[in-house]
């Protein structure tokens, strides 16, 4: 590794540290949820290595417990993963110079927090050639801590007292990500509409409320943006 690459990698590992305090209980909850939904610990851990996405893992666990059809479960996993499309589009220009053997693993390791910190770091002035090592460092750190937490949760299973309310960490993790995503009036309109629709549609089966609300929010965001431009 070039000295610059090494310092980028270490800076990434260091900068992700404050996030890990949320990662550990969230991963633990995702492991517990998989086993609580009726998967074996091995299946819960395999799900985590395949999907590496807390919210996708939780949605899959919930729909698995409800004995939903496979196609419905996968469609729900896709909807909660749509935000990765946006992250992917935003990161792509910064990674375009790399060969596929770099881009594919960095894509697999992408997370909400990793995207937020990575895209900020790529925007800094100065030498940009080794910046992907920063993304690799923070992503690998997050990945390792996440998988260890999921494994611990899957093995602990139902022994966690419900009074600890650890599942609330999941909501808080996404709330902390939501706040910086609200930069414009149109963002705010999208979020308010999505939040209202998800409650109104709460009676729909198979987490369809999440799908309907997300699409409604995106639609309203686009409308507000267009009206604003004219």
């Amino acid at each position, binding site marked *: 590794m070039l000295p610059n690459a090494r310092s980028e990698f270490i800076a990434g590992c260091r900068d992700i540290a*404050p996030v890990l305090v949320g990662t550990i209980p969230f991963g633990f909850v995702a492991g517990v949820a998989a086993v609580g939904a009726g998967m074996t610990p091995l299946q819960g851990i395999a799900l985590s290595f395949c999907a590496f996405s807390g919210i996708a893992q939780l949605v899959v666990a919930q729909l698995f417990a409800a004995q939903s059809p496979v196609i419905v479960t996968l469609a729900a996993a896709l909807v909660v993963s749509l935000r990765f499309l*946006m*992250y992917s*589009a935003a*990161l792509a220009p910064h990674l375009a110079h790399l060969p*596929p053997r770099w*881009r594919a693993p960095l894509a697999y390791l992408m997370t909400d927090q990793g995207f937020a910190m990575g895209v900020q770091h790529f925007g800094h002035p100065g030498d940009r050639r080794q910046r992907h090592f920063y993304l690799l460092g923070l992503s690998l750190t997050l990945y390792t801590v996440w998988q260890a937490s999921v494994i611990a949760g899957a093995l602990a299973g139902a022994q966690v007292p419900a009074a600890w309310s650890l599942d609330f960490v999941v909501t808080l993790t996404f*709330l902390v990500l939501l706040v910086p995503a609200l930069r414009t009036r149109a963002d705010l309109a999208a979020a308010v509409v999505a939040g209202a629709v998800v409650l109104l549609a*709460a009676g729909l089966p198979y987490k369809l409320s999440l799908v309907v609300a997300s699409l409604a929010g995106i639609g309203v965001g686009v409308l507000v943006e267009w009206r604003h431009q004219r």
Partner: protein
Amino acid sequence: MEASALSVWIVIVGAGAVTFLARASFIVFADPQKFPHAFRVALAFVPASVLAAIVVPGLVMPHGAIDLTAANPRLVAGIAALAVAAKVRNPLPALVAGMVVLWGLQALTG
């Protein structure tokens, strides 16, 4: 392997495929510049919409029914975390504030 055990593994591998394809979409496979402008505008609203649709039920419907009152500890704790997150860039204080308020309210109400 019985049918239900097979379907679990289909879900597990399928969830992996779906999440990877979403992540790799533009980094590995496609150039975002080649997509229509409207598509890219819509893409920009995905995080705010999807994240709000995940967060709001966690605050407002903790036990399956809508509770918008101050007696809902998760709503109060979420508002506290929101206030901190709006002020501080670091995610840690907001997470801690949310959990501490929730635990405090749960201890008070028993």
